[in-house]
């Protein structure tokens, strides 16, 4: 496509910080400012600032919006408390994944954050399939910044009183630098951290405010990808898509218990059957000996050289100093510790199936308070 990439609200800011800009999801996005491994390790040890304003921020409202959304998403939304986030997926009628997303109850509405490359299609899907009276507002004027890493809470806590009291997957309305913000404790790196939704016109001021703290450095898409891969988090369009279901993707945790009993969601018949009997393929993590990565598109072979799966993400783990990846393999073979053969550019690589995540999550989970 020769279409001009859309510029982020922070486009000028990124370039001034020395970013190398690349086209991604229709936008010109910063892939790196420094070296990717340095940015990755900085995020794991300090705090990284990510501009994820390409993502779609939607506000869905209307009578019984939770019940309406539950027809398309398999997650438990009716009992989701105010200010709580839920990871979920927009499903097609066959149970295929149209997108993965975060849904947050905000008062009477649901705030839904979807992937940048898929947002236009998602909005059309919601509008076509949700009942009349449910309105989907695309909050095009909002920017989205993420601060991720073990020092994120100290940095943001010093600027935004009260934000440190949020638990993982909890959000609230705050003020940062005299601007209204919706801040949630969530992210895509496996680290503790926050996502900050602010009006686009304030994005530069907020980015400067955060980077004025020497613990924070801007981090590009390159490290965002290696961080999420280490954290075992799927990337839409690569590790999950319409050819995969939540069960194949090993995301069964996102299907609510009540929902399993009641069935009423898109693709329920197939998904519940897969939950019971297993899906033919399953997403797994793998590690390799040596240093050479095996990347997306490589084949998974059985002992006789037949293709029994494919690699959907692969790269070099800066934290572990070894190649890691994700693949779909026949469910019967998908046991941690099992070995499999991968083929890339005519060369064979023995791989070991490994439990995800590769690098332990360090989310700030609060103990559940009974009856709260």
């Amino acid at each position: 496509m020769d279409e001009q990439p859309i510029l982020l609200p922070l486009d000028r800011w990124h370039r001034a910080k020395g970013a190398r800009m690349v086209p991604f999801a229709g936008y010109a996005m910063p892939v790196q400012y420094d070296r990717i491994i340095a940015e990755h390790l900085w995020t794991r040890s300090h705090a990284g600032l990510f501009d994820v304003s390409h993502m779609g921020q939607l506000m869905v409202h209307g009578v019984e919006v939770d019940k309406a959304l539950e027809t398309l998403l398999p997650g438990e939304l009716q009992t989701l408390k105010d200010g709580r986030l839920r990871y979920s997926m927009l499903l097609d009628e066959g149970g295929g994944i149209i997108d993965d997303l975060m849904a947050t109850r905000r008062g009477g509405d649901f705030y839904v954050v979807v992937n940048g490359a898929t947002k236009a299609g998602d909005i059309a899907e919601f509008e076509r399939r949700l009942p009349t009276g449910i309105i989907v507002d695309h909050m095009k004027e909002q920017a989205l910044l993420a601060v991720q890493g073990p020092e994120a809470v100290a940095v943001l806590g010093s600027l935004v009183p009260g934000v440190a009291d949020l638990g993982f997957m909890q959000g609230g309305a705050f003020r940062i630098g005299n601007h209204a913000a919706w801040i949630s404790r969530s992210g895509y790196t496996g680290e503790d951290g926050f996502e900050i939704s602010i009006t686009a016109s304030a994005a530069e001021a907020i980015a400067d405010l955060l980077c004025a703290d020497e613990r924070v450095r801007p981090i590009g898409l390159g490290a965002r990808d290696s961080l999420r891969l280490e954290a075992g988090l799927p990337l839409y369009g690569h590790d999950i898509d319409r050819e995969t279901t939540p069960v194949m993707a090993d995301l069964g945790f996102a299907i609510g218990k009540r929902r399993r009993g009641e069935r009423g969601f898109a693709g329920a018949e197939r998904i519940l059957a897969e939950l019971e009997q297993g899906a033919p393929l399953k997403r797994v993590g793998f590690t390799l000996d040596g240093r050479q990565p095996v990347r997306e598109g490589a084949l998974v072979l059985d002992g006789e050289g037949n293709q029994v799966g494919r690699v959907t993400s692969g790269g070099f783990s800066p934290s572990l100093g070894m190649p890691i990846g994700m693949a779909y393999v026949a469910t019967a073979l998908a046991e941690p510790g099992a070995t499999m053969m991968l083929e890339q550019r005519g060369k064979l690589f023995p791989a070991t199936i490994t439990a995800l995540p590769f690098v332990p999550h360090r989310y700030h989970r609060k103990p559940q308070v009974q009856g709260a």
Partner: protein
Amino acid sequence: MLYFSKDHEWVRVEGVVATVGISDHAQAALGDIVFAEVPEAGKVLAKGDEAAVVESVKAASDVYAPVGGTVTEANPALGDDPAIVNRDPEGEGWFFKLTLSDPSELDGLMDEAAYRDWCKTL
């Protein structure tokens, strides 16, 4: 004498022995290098053959033989520390040495001044 190809390989020639690596421009464009696969001694390469593979965090790239010849030695340091290519691409981060089969192939390459000028136009 030091020569460069349009694929950003360099060749340093001493007598009939040529040392091959990738340029500083190439390592900067590739980013963090995490793996390099180099040819074994004895391998016969024609000019333009795929001679080595270099993997950065982002992607895999081929390294082509800028001149033909027989490989005499690969850089053993690349196995344990491929990042040496980022730190010293045109020195300690060399890939392999070969005996030139046809020194006239060097005529098609750029000298250092021409290469550096050409990089500025990219």
